[in-house]
């Protein structure tokens, strides 16, 4: 189960332990934009949809410039890993635009129609003021639509 991350880390570090992000960043804390609960929801949604489908879902939140589609496609090309099998969800809350970009391999499993349906569900949540919930629901829809290959199901 997802539970709230603890903002105050317990001091269990040894001399070999690297500093946590909460120790390093003093000026802009990690939960400046989203709370730790929301970050945990985003994290779980991204990681689980990527693991279950074998596609690589990344989420970009920020300004997309004047030509939002071109910018989103350029970001997708730089999203790391293998862009053919990656899906980029780019949300620009200031411009009220969401773009979903799928690579060539990913678009075979995620046709544009499925992406449009997920985008519709996301924009409905965004318009209602629920940014994180919309993203999580959109990821869930995309992941369900892409299916879960049998090769990725680990025997327990």
């Amino acid at each position, binding site marked *: 189960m997802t539970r709230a991350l603890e903002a105050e880390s317990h001091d269990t570090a040894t001399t070999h332990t*690297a500093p946590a992000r909460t120790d390093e960043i003093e000026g802009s804390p990690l939960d400046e934009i989203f709370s730790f609960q929301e970050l945990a929801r*985003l*994290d779980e949604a991204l990681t689980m949809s*990527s693991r279950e489908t074998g596609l690589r879902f990344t989420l970009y939140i920020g300004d997309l410039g004047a030509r939002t589609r071109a910018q989103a496609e350029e970001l997708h090309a730089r999203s*790391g890993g*293998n*862009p053919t099998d*990656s899906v980029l969800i780019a949300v620009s809350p200031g411009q009220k635009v969401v773009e979903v970009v799928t690579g060539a391999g990913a678009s075979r499993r995620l046709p544009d129609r499925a992406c449009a349906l997920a985008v519709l569900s996301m924009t409905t949540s965004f318009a209602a003021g629920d940014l994180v919930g919309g993203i999580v629901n959109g990821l869930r829809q995309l992941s369900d639509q892409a299916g879960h290959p049998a090769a990725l199901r680990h025997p327990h």
Partner: protein
Amino acid sequence: MATPAPRAVGADRLNQRPAGKLSSVTVAETILVFVGIPLAVYVLLALLIFLPGGRKRTRYKPGQPWDHAPIWYEPHPENVGAGGHEPAPGAAAVPGSSSAALGSSMYPEQPEERNTDTSRASDAHGAGGHGAHVAPRPVNAGPLGGARGTW
């Protein structure tokens, strides 16, 4: 025989007023109790809420203009896979700035992991800086698909 007057008991002994008259309360006391005390409660609560020094969080709320730097979240790499059938994906990066993607975990990617990624990339491409993290070069992903929505 005259019946004796009943003895005053309890607090009645102290009150030497005639029967049927309550102790007098001034207007100032009434106002103090029925207006002053509620006002004091309201003021105390307002001070507790609105005084600075509490949680200073300027979290993003939908509808506000987005004046934060762009953030890019990527999934956790799957470390538990037994067979190395696929190389570990490099980190995403924003082309304009030098900021790499945040994995949303509390502990950042360590330099050793980063070095393995960059060395693998530099082996593949034949060039590349050592140690410094370079943004992944754009890879052509074939015909792109997707969707767009506004709200």
